[in-house]
């Protein structure tokens, strides 16, 4: 019977150790892991910064976070929380209070029928469309919008420079992009409705550019700040009908803390240029640097933070 008691004690010990390990981050692992569970109405000194599961977005979020920390805020990072449809509820509920967003895509999320296309129109429309409780700070000139791209060879061979040129082509067209592109207003249906172009859709996930270069697809949905548009010599097709909205980098904030954050974040947005954003992306994908290092250097170079 001694062994059984020992068994019980050891089992209890092992269980306790595992439970302690499970709880060692000072928070209940079964509670939300955002720390500030009361919806951000508590200590305004702690700001939860989120980011998409997109390396470029994470760099901008890291810049926001470090700028805030340099100004004395306590920052909690809740990065890589998927796509808009997944994280917006967390912003609306106040679980996350600051998030780098893109004006056009965010506007389309709230107002799919919007007619605005220019950066200023989109920004103005976005301010109207946001629900109570959410606000945007100043937009940056840097933009990272969806765009359709073809290889240089394809453009030369078929004489295309614009989405409108695709309509008359005697080529089987296939568009590559993330799985959800199929359901977006600027997806295959948008191409058909606005440009009369029939395309098949191939979900190419995160390897859309490589799939374009390899020939799996002949049109690729690429973010405009992707460095590979230059390095792979892709041709971004013009969008005369304004299917894609201008989509500038914009800080989306919880309205309660908007004023507190504006003094720190607006100068960051002012300093972030289109070329600057591409350069940040190059540092991540080509130089393989971490977002924290890239952000720290960028803030130092721009005398911020």
């Amino acid at each position, binding site marked *: 019977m001694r062994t059984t008691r020992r*068994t019980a004690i050891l089992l209890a010990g092992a269980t306790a150790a595992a439970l302690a390990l*499970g709880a060692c981050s000072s928070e209940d692992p*079964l509670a*939300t*892991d955002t720390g500030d569970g009361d919806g951000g109405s508590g200590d305004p000194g702690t700001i939860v910064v989120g980011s998409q599961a997109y390396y470029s977005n994470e760099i901008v979020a890291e810049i926001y976070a470090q700028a805030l920390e340099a100004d004395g805020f306590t920052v909690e990072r809740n990065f*890589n*929380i998927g796509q808009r449809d*997944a994280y917006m509820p*967390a912003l609306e509920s106040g679980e996350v209070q600051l998030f780098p967003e893109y004006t056009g895509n965010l506007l389309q999320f709230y107002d799919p029928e919007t007619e605005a296309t220019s950066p200023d129109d989109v920004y103005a429309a976005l301010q109207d469309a946001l629900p109570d409780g959410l606000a945007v700070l100043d937009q940056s000139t840097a933009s990272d919008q969806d765009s359709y791209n073809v290889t240089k060879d394809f453009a030369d061979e078929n004489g295309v420079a614009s989405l409108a040129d695709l309509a008359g082509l005697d080529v089987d067209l296939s568009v590559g992009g993330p799985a959800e592109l199929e359901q977006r207003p600027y997806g295959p249906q948008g191409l058909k409705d606005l440009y009369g172009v029939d395309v098949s859709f191939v979900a190419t996930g995160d390897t859309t550019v490589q799939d374009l270069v390899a020939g799996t697809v002949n049109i690729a949905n690429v973010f405009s700040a992707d460095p590979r548009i230059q390095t792979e010599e892709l041709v971004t097709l013009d969008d005369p009908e304004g299917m894609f909205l201008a989509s500038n980098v914009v800080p989306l904030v919880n309205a309660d803390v908007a004023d507190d954050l504006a003094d720190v974040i607006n100068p960051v947005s002012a300093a972030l240029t289109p070329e600057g954003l591409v350069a940040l992306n190059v540092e991540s994908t080509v130089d*393989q640097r971490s977002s924290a290092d890239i952000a720290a250097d960028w803030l130092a170079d721009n005398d911020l933070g």
Partner: protein
Amino acid sequence: MTWVTSNLDLIGRLSVEHLRQSALPIVLGLLVAVPTGWLAFRFRPTRGLVLGAVGLLYTIPSLALFALLPPLLGISFLSEANLIIALTIYAVAIMTRFVSDALASVEPSVRQAAVAVGYGPWRRFWQVDLPLAGPVVLAGLRVTAVSTISLATVGILIGIDNLGYLFTNGYQRQIVAEILAGVVAVVVIALVVDGLLVLLGRLLMPWTRGRRAA
């Protein structure tokens, strides 16, 4: 490989997170599976039901289960609870069958002897059945631990940060070393935990020493 050397702190931080997220489901899986496995072992009518139910749980793709828990349970999308509950469900699914098999592996004659010398059902379960079933339970716990640690990586697709981050981030940035580092880290953690469980088994069940448990 320069990516690895310059990101050791990231790999370390994610490894700790990963282990933390995996530990609770493994323990909870064992605790829940002892009664459910016993139910499956003890009563013929419940056996088919319980084992059928846990067999069904296996077949639910993890990605779908992770994503469906928030609306079904009404919890936040960003909550780690999604991952922990889902991993616990799979752990219970694996462990229940093992516990049931383990109890069945106890020689009926031993059980009868215990009854003959006056053991009540409760005391017999804890002092005879469970210790003798130990080796097979441990085998199940090892499968559960390795599977849980490996499966947790899919959590990154619903926004839960762990070693799976190195997979999606490395894939986006085309850094082979980053993904490879993630795979290796997961395998190392799984094998270390597996080794610790073997050691724990020797401590708890000294009578199995020198004999192969599984």
